[in-house]
């Protein structure tokens, strides 16, 4: 029997070893998905399986899934500002060891229609950061801050992708360095330059600014140093704003820049260059605003002039600076506001002067919001501020698509929020029993409040702000209000994502959500490669 047993055992072991074909390693790794809202669906990034799965809402709370391959090792994923495109930047299999290893690449999924398309752009070096052109023409991969994507990296190199030429090769470019490396990239609208309308790429480094023409990315670069002499402390750019879109006003293109460590606002007027090698040049102007500004904008004031508005919370004031003469007008504020956005199109007077909304982000003080009527400011600055109290410190201000008169004020404690009507100046408070996150529907009709990691969800129509609560069984990671591909026109679904197991979702009718009619999906990323 010993011989029998050993024979059977040997055969069993032999056959087991012979059958040890391994499965795809994809199965051995738990799901770690991140969800993104798109114009016509929800994207689930499944980096382990090198794919993006798009959920498309159908009639009757049904959902279809479509998988698109992406490059290996995704490092940055972003949506375009209009949510019609998803961008996935991948480092590939770097450094390559075999001829089959993937190159670094950018995958773009066009979700502007329900017939989604994928484009793939390869590049020669892995870069971890991505900047997206708000007009949809360009995307740029760059090194930026953070960890290097390879053993040796040129931090001044970036790769430009022409999104109007699908599947093309990225165009590499290295800018000259005087010690800084690109930290932030800004795509301008068309500017009226001496040689015609051009779009520029503004590259902020730690110490200076570089301008490049987007349509001639290999062309000469205009470098603008930000300190007047070598002994001056370096100026660290913290953001730019651009003006000069009027084709009838050649030479009015201007850029304003603020810094994290400097009380000046820097303005650059783009005009003809004295150097024949350049089509345009930049004349720099430094304007002292009395303190480090936290936000700036180009505004039109009552005297018809162009000014740079700067918020200086250190002096609880705002400053209007003439970019040509450097003359400033200081406006005392009721609170040290740190953020500014123009709401002229909603509450403007029709005289061409701007109205700005001010609020304080990141402060523990309940500073409320204020309207800054720039038509009055230059002559009568003390008449120009209208404050509206809000009971909680504001964390963020959200726009409502298609209803620009409405703003949603998110508070720091996340247990209450406010809907502000810019025209009536009414501030409607809404409270939640716990920490809540807000999602505003892209059609602007409603918003959703949900408890991240909880089961509570509520719809609020902007028309009546009447909460309609529903519940899910698994914990909610995120929610998305999306259009349906089928069914009656205007139908929308609310897809609540559950990041448990193979990723699940609960789908509601966004217009009339009820728990009883909800549809629960599971294992969305469990299906094989």
């Amino acid at each position, binding site marked *: 029997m010993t011989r*029998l047993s050993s*024979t*059977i055992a040997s*055969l*069993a072991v032999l*056959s*087991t070893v*012979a*059958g*040890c*074909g*391994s*499965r*795809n390693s*994809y*199965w*051995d*790794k*738990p*799901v770690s998905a991140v969800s993104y809202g798109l114009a016509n669906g929800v994207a689930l990034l499944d980096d*382990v399986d090198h794919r993006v799965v798009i959920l498309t809402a159908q009639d009757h*709370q049904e959902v279809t899934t479509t998988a698109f391959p992406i490059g290996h090792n995704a490092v940055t994923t972003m949506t375009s500002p209009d949510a019609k495109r998803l961008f996935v930047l991948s480092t590939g299999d770097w450094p390559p060891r075999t001829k089959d290893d993937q190159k670094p690449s950018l995958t773009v999924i066009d979700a502007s229609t329900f017939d989604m398309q994928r484009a793939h752009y390869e590049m020669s070096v892995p870069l971890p950061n991505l900047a997206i052109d708000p007009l949809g023409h360009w995307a740029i991969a760059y090194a930026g801050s953070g960890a290097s994507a390879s053993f040796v990296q040129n931090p001044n190199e970036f790769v430009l992708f022409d999104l109007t030429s699908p599947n093309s090769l990225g165009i590499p470019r290295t800018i000259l360095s005087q010690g800084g490396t690109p930290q932030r990239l800004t795509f301008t609208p068309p500017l009226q330059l001496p040689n015609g309308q051009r779009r520029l790429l503004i590259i902020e480094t730690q110490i200076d600014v570089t301008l490049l023409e987007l349509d001639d990315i290999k062309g000469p670069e205009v470098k603008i140093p930000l300190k007047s002499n070598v002994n001056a402390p370096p100026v660290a750019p913290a953001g730019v704003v651009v003006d000069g879109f009027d084709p009838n006003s050649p030479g009015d293109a201007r850029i304003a820049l603020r810094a994290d460590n400097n009380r000046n606002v820097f303005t650059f007027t783009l005009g003809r260059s004295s150097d024949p090698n350049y089509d345009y040049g930049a004349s720099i102007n430094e304007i002292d605003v009395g303190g480090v500004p936290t936000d700036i904008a180009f505004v039109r004031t009552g005297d018809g002039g162009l000014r740079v508005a700067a918020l200086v919370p250190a002096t609880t004031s705002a400053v209007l600076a003439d970019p040509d003469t450097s003359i400033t007008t200081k406006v005392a504020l009721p609170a040290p506001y740190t953020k500014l956005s123009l709401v002229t199109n909603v509450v403007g007077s029709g005289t061409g002067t701007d109205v700005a909304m001010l609020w304080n982000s990141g402060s523990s003080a309940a500073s409320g919001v204020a309207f800054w009527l720039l038509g009055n400011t230059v002559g009568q600055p003390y008449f120009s501020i209208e404050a509206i109290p809000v009971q909680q410190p504001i964390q963020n201000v959200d726009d409502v698509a298609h209803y620009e008169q409405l703003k949603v004020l998110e508070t720091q404690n996340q247990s209450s929020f406010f809907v502000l009507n810019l025209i009536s100046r009414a501030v409607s408070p809404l409270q939640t029993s716990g920490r809540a996150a807000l999602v505003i529907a892209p059609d602007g009709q409603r918003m959703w409040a949900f408890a991240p990691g909880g089961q509570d969800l509520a719809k609020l129509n902007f028309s009546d702000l009447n909460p309609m609560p529903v519940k899910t*069984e*698994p914990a909610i990671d995120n929610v998305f209000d999306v259009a349906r591909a089928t069914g009656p026109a205007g139908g929308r679904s609310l897809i609540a994502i*559950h990041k*448990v*197991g*193979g*990723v*699940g*979702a609960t789908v509601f009718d966004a217009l009339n959500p009820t728990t*009883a*009619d*909800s*549809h*629960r*999906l*599971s*294992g*969305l*990323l*469990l*299906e*094989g490669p």
Partner: protein
Amino acid sequence: MKRLAIALGAASLLVAAPSARAEDPPAPETQAPTNPALAPTGHTNRLKSMWRFELGYRGSFVREATFDPFSTQDYFAQVSLGGSRTVYTRGRFSFAPGFMWDYGKTGATSRGDAASLEVHRLVIPLEGRLHFGAWGYAFLRTAPGIAEMSAEVDDPASPANLTKSRWLFATDVSAGYAYPLWPRDNPMDLTPRIWLQADSGYGWITPIGLNLAPDLPSSDPRIASGVDLGSLTMRGAFLRVAAAISY
């Protein structure tokens, strides 16, 4: 299990029925041997005409991608239990139908979810044998039958385990050899004998669509759907080793 018991019972009846029509008569002590070389005159050769019951191990190689969620290897282990009865002999050849039950279950953690696959295979082995006296016999076996496949995935996002179970057509074709271990002498004695055998072949079960659905009671008002893992065909080469007892 009720379905399994019914199936086993039906298979037993199938095996029992042909024995009445066997060329070897039911009273072996009075039967004339069909092959004098194998059996002395006036006795039945119990190495050739016999009831056999076997218990073994079966390993199947399944290289289907849709098998991956349920196993970390392309391999499916089963236990085999079966019986047969010689119903016809001629010269060195004999024929023995029987029944066989193969059972196996495999599981794996797939993308964080526990997944399992269970297979009951009930077949009617139809076995032709070529005898070599005290050295046993070689055999060729075809085994049509049915199989119940049950797949299950425990996904926390689902209100209940995702399951699917189906009865499917199954068949095996294999060839092998059976060797009498003990006792090898006195083939006419009506004493139990122990055999060692092995066979190898190809097994196949018709495809099952792995569109798993939450296992909710029909009264549950929740609307839920599951996951589609594709279509799985359990097919591939297999190897089986078994110990058998005959009399």
